[in-house]
């Protein structure tokens, strides 16, 4: 198992390398001169050039990349062009709230999604199924930011029950994670339903019934676990969607997380911050998929992990 993980991590490295190059190229490809933005609208050409020199933006791109990567390997994410603060400092207070946010979103979405999906499948073409599926389809059809705005209006402004934003205390996570998870919840519910329906048609479910097992045992012990396998894959893939969605949700809820930092930094062409944030996102995504793969092998004995 350990060997497998090491192997997988080794496989990740080249991907991260490619991602780092791509994101580097990508941010330098976007028009916009950070030196100009740092210097201000009223700055003279000389001022701008001074700033550019000072920030090392006059070096050729490959040189900038190498120095960035060199610093990165020493654990130094660089210094923000906009704030002059170390990027790691800017991340430290924003990273965990973002992680919690995605995590809460993922968790409620998974639990509720599985529940709705399973109920829908078991009561196929009966009212619980219809209700469940209407909920699910609505969930993916709602624009995230709109849902967020409405939730703020209802729960924060009208009812005053929950804070409108920030990351202070569990309460402030409720609305953003609700908004963020809605889409995933729907996806999971739909996949669980169809996967479970497919599983319920299989021969081994019939075998289970032929053994004289209770229907609940058949569904929970035999069917559910098998139908989880595709659901896990989907959930993993959707995580990328979550990261993307967090950008919008964090904006709506003025949530101090990585997504908003990224948007702000893009606006300011704060290269070191964008670069590191993108890398972090990619790594997060890759790690989640690694976890999914491991989970997958736990669920599916056919995927043997050689130790």
């Amino acid at each position, binding site marked *: 198992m350990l060997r497998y993980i090491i192997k997988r991590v080794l496989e990740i490295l080249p991907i991260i390398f490619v991602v780092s190059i791509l994101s580097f190229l990508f941010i330098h490809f976007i028009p916009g001169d950070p030196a100009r933005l740092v210097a201000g609208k009223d700055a003279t050409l000389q001022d701008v050039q001074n700033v550019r020199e000072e920030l090392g933006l006059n070096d050729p791109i490959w040189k900038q990349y190498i120095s960035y990567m060199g610093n990165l390997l020493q654990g130094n994410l660089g210094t923000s062009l906009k704030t002059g603060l170390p990027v790691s400092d800017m991340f430290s207070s924003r990273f965990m709230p973002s992680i919690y946010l995605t995590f809460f979103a993922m968790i409620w979405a998974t639990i509720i999604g599985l529940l709705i999906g399973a109920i829908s499948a078991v009561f196929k073409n009966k009212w619980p199924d219809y209700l469940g599926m209407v909920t699910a389809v609505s969930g993916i059809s709602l624009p995230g930011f709109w849902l967020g705005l409405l939730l703020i209006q209802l729960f924060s402004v009208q009812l005053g029950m929950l804070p409108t934003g920030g990351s202070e205390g569990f309460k402030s996570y409720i609305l953003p994670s609700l908004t963020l998870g809605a889409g995933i919840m729907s996806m999971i519910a739909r996949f669980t339903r169809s996967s479970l329906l497919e599983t319920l*048609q299989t021969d081994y*479910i019939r*075998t289970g019934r032929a*053994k004289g*097992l*209770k229907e609940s045992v058949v569904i929970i012990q035999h069917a559910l676990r*098998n139908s989880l396998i595709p659901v896990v894959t989907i959930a993993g893939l959707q995580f990328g969607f979550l990261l993307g969605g967090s950008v919008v949700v964090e904006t709506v809820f003025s949530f101090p997380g990585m997504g908003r930092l990224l948007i702000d930094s893009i606006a300011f062409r704060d290269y070191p911050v964008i670069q590191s944030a993108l890398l972090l996102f990619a790594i997060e995504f890759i790690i989640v998929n690694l976890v999914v793969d491991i989970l997958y092998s736990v669920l599916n004995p056919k995927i043997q992990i050689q130790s």
Partner: protein
Amino acid sequence: MTKKLLQVEELQTEFTRDKQKTRILHGVNFHINEGEVLGLVGESGCGKSLTSLSIMRLFQGTTGEITNGNIYFNDSNLVNLSDYEMRKLRGKQMAMIFQDPMTSLNPVMKIGKQLTEPIRVHLKLNKSEAREHAIAMLTKVGIARPDEIVDEYPHQLSGGMRQRVMIAMAMSCNPNLLIADEPTTALDVTIQAQILELMKKLQKEEKMSILLITHDLGVVAEMCDRVVVMYAGKVVEEASVYDLFENPKHPYSKGLIASVPKLGEKKDKLDSIKGNVPNPSNMPKGCKFAPRCNMAMPICHEQEPACLAIENDRLCSCWLYELETR
């Protein structure tokens, strides 16, 4: 002389699709004696598998339902039992093995767990007792290293081994009746020979009855005491295995037996039955075999023949004999 273990009377089963009912079984009649191997033969779509599912009442998740008829098993009518009572029977007194051992075992559950499930439910053994029982069953069906196999997953076993596991599972509560639905169709010939041999041996040892459902006349000839031939949801002929192969009465049985190429038999041309099996939603009027029958008479296209005893222990559903006996 012999006691009837299972008696199926006028069994009718229907499926609903788009609010339309399609009858697949059109009144099936047959019985199984204690300690007997009964073969149920017929081509695909004739309803033989559905007959077995009807007996087990395994309709969950489908729209199938028994709309008429009785199934007497050990004096109780299975049609009238509650779901709970039925569950108590399934796996305990009536067990079943299926065609495809690859898909009939749960891929994510260890063999041991799957085997002990019916043991724990029906025999009320605790975990370790059940495990021991399971290992004993695996030994019985000729699996080497049974104590290791219980901790393995189905995909780690070969097809033959899996079918052995299925048999062990079916036999674990010592059932009176084993329904084997095409148990060897998915297996290679040499493995089929092993499994058939095993089933024969177990049947003799345990003195149980087997309802063997197959399309392979060779398997029937090898295994069965008596044979029921089905066509389009009905029994067309019932006879002892010797009678049937030596002197088939129904034109369908005749055609079927004649169309099988037999080893060592030199024929330039095989006999065959013309046409195709009719679609269940679009059954011909009268005798369902009439459109394909060489000996069809006008009445055959009009009216369905009854199933009549034509000799000792022989039944046949054909106007040829009905007219004869009249």
